[in-house]
C-alpha cells in the first residue's frame, strides 16, 4: 500500500515538473502546437502547415498526443493550461474551445480577422465556435462531414446496385449485398461510430428542421417524438446488416473491409477517405462517395480548429503567423486534399480536390446558404460533451441490445440528456 502510494506520488511529482517547464524567451520564432494528428495521412496533412511556417521562418515545436478523438490530448491540454503553461495553439473540437474562451484562456485574433475578413469566408455556423463575444480566438482548418456513404465500386457493380436516394432504397441495396454474400455494412461497434451513424439516420428520418430542433435546441417534444422513435427503428434495421464481429472494431478496420471488398459500404465521416487514399484507391474508379440516403443537400459537420492560447507578449508574433498560415488558402487547400476533408474557407478553389472533395466543397456551400449546415451531435458540434456522450451512451446501448425497444430508447434519451444538463 505505502509503496504504491509512493510511486503514485513520485509519478505525479514527475509529471507536474515535466509539464511546468516554462517557454524560453529565446524561442520567439517558434510555435508550440498540441495535436493528435499522428496517423499516417493526418501527419502528412499537418506537414503542409509545418513547411509553410518553416518558409515564413518559424520553427514548429510538436506536442503530439496520440489517440484518435483527442481525449488524451484534451486531458494534457487541461493540465498545461492549469499549470499556466499553455501551448501557442492546440487542435481543439467544438465546445472545448468555448470552455477555454469562457475561462478567459484564449487570445484575441481580431487584428488578423478584420484585416482578412474571416467573417465573410467562414460559414456562420462555425463562427459560433471560433468567436466569443465578437472576438476571434480559434480558427478552423477544415470541415468534415459525417453523413457520407463509402462504397466499394467493384462490389457495387457486381451486385448491380445504384445510388440509394432514401432510406428504403438503402435497405434494398443492403439486402442485395447480403444476397450476394458480402457483408453489407462495415461498422465498428464503438459508441462514437454508432453515434456518428445515428446522426445521419436522424437527419434522414426527420430532415434538417427536426434534427436542429432535437439536437441543437434539445426540444423535449422533438426528443420524445414519434420521429425520434422512427429513427431508432431505422437504426435497428441497420443492425441486421453488420457482420457478427463488429463490436469494438476500430473505424479504420471497418474502412479496410470496404477497401478490400469484404464489405459493401461504410457510413463514416470523410476522414475515411484518407484510408482509401493511403491504399492508392481513386474516387469514382475504385470507390464511391454518396451522401447518406435522404440527407442530400444537408451537411452534418464537425471541424478541426486551432485554439490560440494566452501566451507571453514576445510569442504573440509567432502565434499570429501561425494563425495566418492556418487561414491561408494555400494551406487550407493542400492540407485538406490529404486529410480528406474540405477547406473551412469558402473561397478556396476546388481544383486540387478529387471527385468526393469537389462534391464536399459544393455541398458545404449549398448547405451553408440553405441553412442545412448543422453540427454533429456525436462529434460535439451540436451539444457540449456531457450531453453528447449521454446521447452516444443511449445509441450504443440500444444498438447492442441493452436497451430493448425504440420506446425505451426515446424515454432513456430524454432522461439521459436531462441528467447531463
Amino acid at each position, binding site marked *: *500500500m505505502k509503496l504504491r502510494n509512493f510511486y*503514485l506520488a513520485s509519478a505525479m511529482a514527475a509529471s507536474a515538473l515535466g509539464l511546468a517547464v516554462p517557454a524560453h524567451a529565446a524561442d520567439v520564432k517558434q510555435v508550440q502546437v498540441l495535436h493528435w494528428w499522428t496517423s499516417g495521412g493526418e501527419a502528412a496533412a499537418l506537414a503542409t502547415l509545418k513547411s509553410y511556417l518553416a518558409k515564413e521562418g518559424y520553427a514548429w515545436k510538436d506536442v503530439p498526443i496520440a489517440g484518435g478523438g483527442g481525449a488524451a490530448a484534451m486531458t494534457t491540454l487541461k493540465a498545461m493550461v492549469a499549470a499556466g503553461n499553455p501551448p501557442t495553439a492546440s487542435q481543439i473540437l467544438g465546445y472545448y474551445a468555448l470552455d477555454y474562451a469562457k475561462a478567459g484562456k484564449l487570445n484575441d485574433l481580431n487584428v488578423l480577422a478584420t484585416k482578412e475578413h474571416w467573417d465573410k469566408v467562414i460559414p456562420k455556423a462555425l463562427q459560433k465556435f471560433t468567436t466569443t463575444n465578437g472576438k476571434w480566438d480559434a480558427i478552423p482548418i477544415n470541415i468534415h462531414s459525417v453523413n457520407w456513404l463509402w462504397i466499394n465500386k467493384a462490389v457495387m457493380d457486381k451486385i448491380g446496385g445504384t445510388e440509394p436516394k432514401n432510406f428504403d432504397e438503402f435497405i434494398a441495396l443492403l439486402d442485395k449485398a447480403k444476397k450476394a454474400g458480402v457483408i453489407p455494412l462495415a461498422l465498428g461497434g*464503438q*459508441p462514437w461510430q454508432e453515434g456518428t451513424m445515428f446522426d445521419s439516420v436522424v437527419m434522414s428520418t426527420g430532415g434538417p428542421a427536426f434534427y436542429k430542433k432535437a439536437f441543437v435546441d434539445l426540444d423535449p417534444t422533438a426528443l420524445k417524438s414519434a420521429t425520434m422513435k422512427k429513427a431508432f427503428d431505422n437504426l435497428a434495421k441497420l443492425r441486421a446488416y453488420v457482420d457478427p464481429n463488429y463490436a*469494438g472494431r*476500430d473505424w479504420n478496420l471497418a474502412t479496410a473491409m470496404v477497401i478490400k471488398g469484404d464489405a459493401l459500404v461504410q457510413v463514416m465521416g470523410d476522414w475515411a477517405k484518407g484510408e482509401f487514399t493511403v491504399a492508392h484507391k481513386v474516387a469514382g474508379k475504385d470507390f464511391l462517395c454518396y451522401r447518406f440516403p435522404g440527407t442530400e443537400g444537408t451537411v452534418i459537420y464537425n471541424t478541426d480548429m486551432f485554439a490560440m492560447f494566452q501566451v507571453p507578449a514576445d510569442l504573440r508574433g509567432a502565434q499570429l503567423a501561425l494563425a495566418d498560415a492556418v487561414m491561408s488558402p494555400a494551406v487550407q487547400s493542400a492540407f485538406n486534399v490529404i486529410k480528406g476533408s474540405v477547406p473551412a474557407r469558402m473561397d478556396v478553389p476546388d481544383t486540387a480536390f478529387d471527385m468526393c472533395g469537389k462534391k464536399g466543397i459544393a455541398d458545404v456551400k449549398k448547405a451553408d446558404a440553405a441553412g442545412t449546415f448543422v453540427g454533429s451531435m456525436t462529434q460535439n458540434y451540436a451539444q457540449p460533451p456531457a450531453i453528447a456522450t449521454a446521447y452516444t451512451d443511449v445509441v450504443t446501448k440500444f444498438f447492442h441490445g441493452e436497451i430493448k425497444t425504440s420506446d425505451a430508447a426515446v424515454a432513456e434519451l430524454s432522461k439521459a440528456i436531462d441528467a447531463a444538463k
Partner: protein
Amino acid sequence: MTVSALTPVPRARVSLRQRLQNALPKLVLAPSFLLILVFVYGFISWTFLLSLTSSKAFTNFHFIGWGNYLKLWTWTFERDPPSNWYTAIVNMGLFGGIYVVFCLSIGLGLAILLDQKIRGEGVLRPIYLYPLALSFIVTGTAWKLFLNPRIGLEKAMHDLGWTSFHFDWVVNPRMMIYCVAIAAIWASAGFIMALFLAGLRGIDGEILKAAQIDGASSFQTYRRIVIPMLRPVFLSAMIILINLALKSYDLVLSVTGNNPGGAAELPSTFMYSYTFTRDQMAVGSASAIIMMMTIAAVMIPYLYSELREKSR
C-alpha cells in the same frame, strides 16, 4: 560506564552522533512523507472537495452538497436499461472476483508444481513470469486479436477442421468482461506464482520431513501445513491483485475496443471518462471517492486482522 566517566569529552561527541543517528531516519523519511502527505492525502481531500461542487469541464467551487453522490446512488439501482455506474459496479464484482480467485489458484498451483524439484525449472519460471513484462495495452490488444472470431482462435479451429467451434465472447458485449478477466489473469498469474514460489522456498524443510515421518500424504502436507504457512504470501498477493483489479483501465479499453454498448464499464473507466472526457468532473470525483471508500472497507479489516495476528 567507568570509561565515559573518565573521559567526558568523547562522551559528548558520541551523544551528538547518537542524536544525529536517531534523527537520521526521520530526516530521510521526511521528503517522502511530505510528498505522500501532499500528493496522496492532499489530493484525496481535494477530490473529495470537488465531489461536493458542481464542477464540469473545469473546477469550480460552487458547492451543491451531496447531489453528485445522490446521482450515483440512484444510478446504482438502475438496472434496465443499465446505467453506466450500475454496469461498472457489476463488472467490478465479476471481474475482480474472477481475477483474484483465478490468479491465486493458478499462481499457487503453478508454484506447487514447479516446486517438485523438476528439471528445467530455470527455463519454465521466466516463461510463466514473462507476461508481466508486457504492458497492459499490448496484452489487451494481443488478446483482442487472438479472441476475435474472424481472425483468431475461432478461425484457427475452423481451419483445422473443427467447424462447430464457437467462441465469440470478445465481440459479445455481455461476455466481454470475461475476456478482460482472461487477459488479466494471463498477465498476472505468473507473477503470483513467483510470489508463492518464494514463499514455498522459505518453508523449512525440516517441517516437511517431520510431516513425512508422521505419515502425512503430500496432499495433506500441502493442505494442512504448507498452505497455512503461506498466509503472509496470500496477504501480499491479495493486496497486489485487488489493487491491480481496481485500477485496470488500459486493459479494459484495449480488449473491448472502447467499451461498445457501454457493457465493459468499470469504476476506473467510469471515473476517468466522467472526469476528463464527459465534462462532469464533480460526478467523476464522487465516483473516485466511492471507489476509495469501497477499497478501504475491504482492505482495512483484512489488513487489521492479518497484521494483528502477526504481531501476536
